[in-house]
């Protein structure tokens, strides 16, 4: 289901973005709104326990622990925003550390609300055993370690995790520390790689063997080509989109695999022509990106 959804969603997002790239996101919002409304009618309601069913609407609202939820969410939001804004814009920016401090203070307020104020707390801390906390810490560490892979590649790197699922990280960043990083994670097979192959041939005017492509399984940039899906390709013409997306492929041909920084040395072993080609690709992509 997930993979199917990713393919269909990616394709339609790409097609819509042919009109105007923000449609990618607007259509996403529209689709989600429709699904939310549909789910109100389609999904069966949860059988409520008799004592809850008897409650009036205001009582139910009171049971929601709205103060706790709003304080908690705001705290998490501000804390997160500060941490993710700081790498690009610097910790010395006042608003960033102010947000961090407010976030931390609100976190304390949240604990106070949950433990002292709320009658039906959102997170009943009393019910959290040390076992649960252990598991949550474990989980948080693991996923945080995973999360850092998203910041890694500098220009354009491609990665896939397992043979079943491919995570493609296509990141672009300019040489300024303030440059935002873009990321796309797409999931699909090699079914549409032939199309990409054709485009590659047309663009580079040199053959490229399918076995090579299917072995790599890098059909990912087809989605970009389909509709300028990737942020680096926003509002770019077909040729530029192709160029930008080929950057990923070309990068790979000089040894930038999914293990990018570790195998960076492969770069040195390639012929001058190949390296130059990649440099041109990267340069044009970055220029494109700067223009956007």
């Amino acid at each position, binding site marked *: 289901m997930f993979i199917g959804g990713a393919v269909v969603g990616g394709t339609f997002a790409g097609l819509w973005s042919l009109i105007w790239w923000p449609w990618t996101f607007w259509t996403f919002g529209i689709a989600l709104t429709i699904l939310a409304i549909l789910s109100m009618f389609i999904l069966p309601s949860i059988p409520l326990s008799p004592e809850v069913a008897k409650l009036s609407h205001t009582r139910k609202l009171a049971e929601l622990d709205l103060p706790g939820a709003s304080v908690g969410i705001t705290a998490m939001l501000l804390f997160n925003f500060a941490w993710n804004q700081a790498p690009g814009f610097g910790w010395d920016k006042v608003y960033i550390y102010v947000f961090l401090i407010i976030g931390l203070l609100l976190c304390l307020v949240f604990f106070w609300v949950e433990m002292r104020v709320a009658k039906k707390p959102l997170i009943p801390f009393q019910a959290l055993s040390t076992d649960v906390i252990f598991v949550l810490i474990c989980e948080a*560490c693991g996923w945080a370690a995973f999360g850092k892979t998203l910041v890694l590649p500098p220009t354009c790197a491609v990665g896939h995790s397992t043979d079943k699922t491919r995570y493609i990280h296509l990141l672009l960043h300019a040489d300024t*520390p303030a440059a935002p990083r873009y990321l796309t994670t797409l999931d699909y097979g090699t079914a549409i790689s032939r199309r990409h192959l054709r485009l590659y041939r047309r663009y580079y005017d040199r053959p490229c063997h399918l076995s090579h492509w299917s072995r790599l399984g890098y059909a990912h940039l087809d989605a970009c080509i389909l509709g300028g899906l990737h942020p680096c390709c926003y509002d770019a013409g077909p040729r530029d989109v192709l160029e930008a997306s080929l950057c990923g492929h070309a990068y790979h041909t000089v040894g930038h695999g999914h293990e990018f920084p570790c195998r960076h040395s492969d770069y040195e072993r390639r012929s001058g022509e190949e390296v130059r080609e990649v440099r041109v690709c990267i340069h044009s992509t970055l220029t494109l990106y700067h223009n956007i």
Partner: protein
Amino acid sequence: MAASLVNTVVNYSISIGVGIAGTVETQVNNGGRTEQDELSGYRGALYLGIGLSGLGVLTSLLFLWKMHVRETREGAHGQSVKA
């Protein structure tokens, strides 16, 4: 509640992990002007990942040890106290 808590922790820690790694990277890479600097930034971020994974493993081991202690104690009493 448990499911939402787990989900929140997963997504939130990914996001915070990215943030922390980004901070490490930009603090370590001297502005990332040269390739070498840039790489040292990524290395820093990767080392952070190693550290976090290590912390995860450590926590699991602690948890394992705790479970083990509890089980042996329960075994000694000859009954399960598990809720």
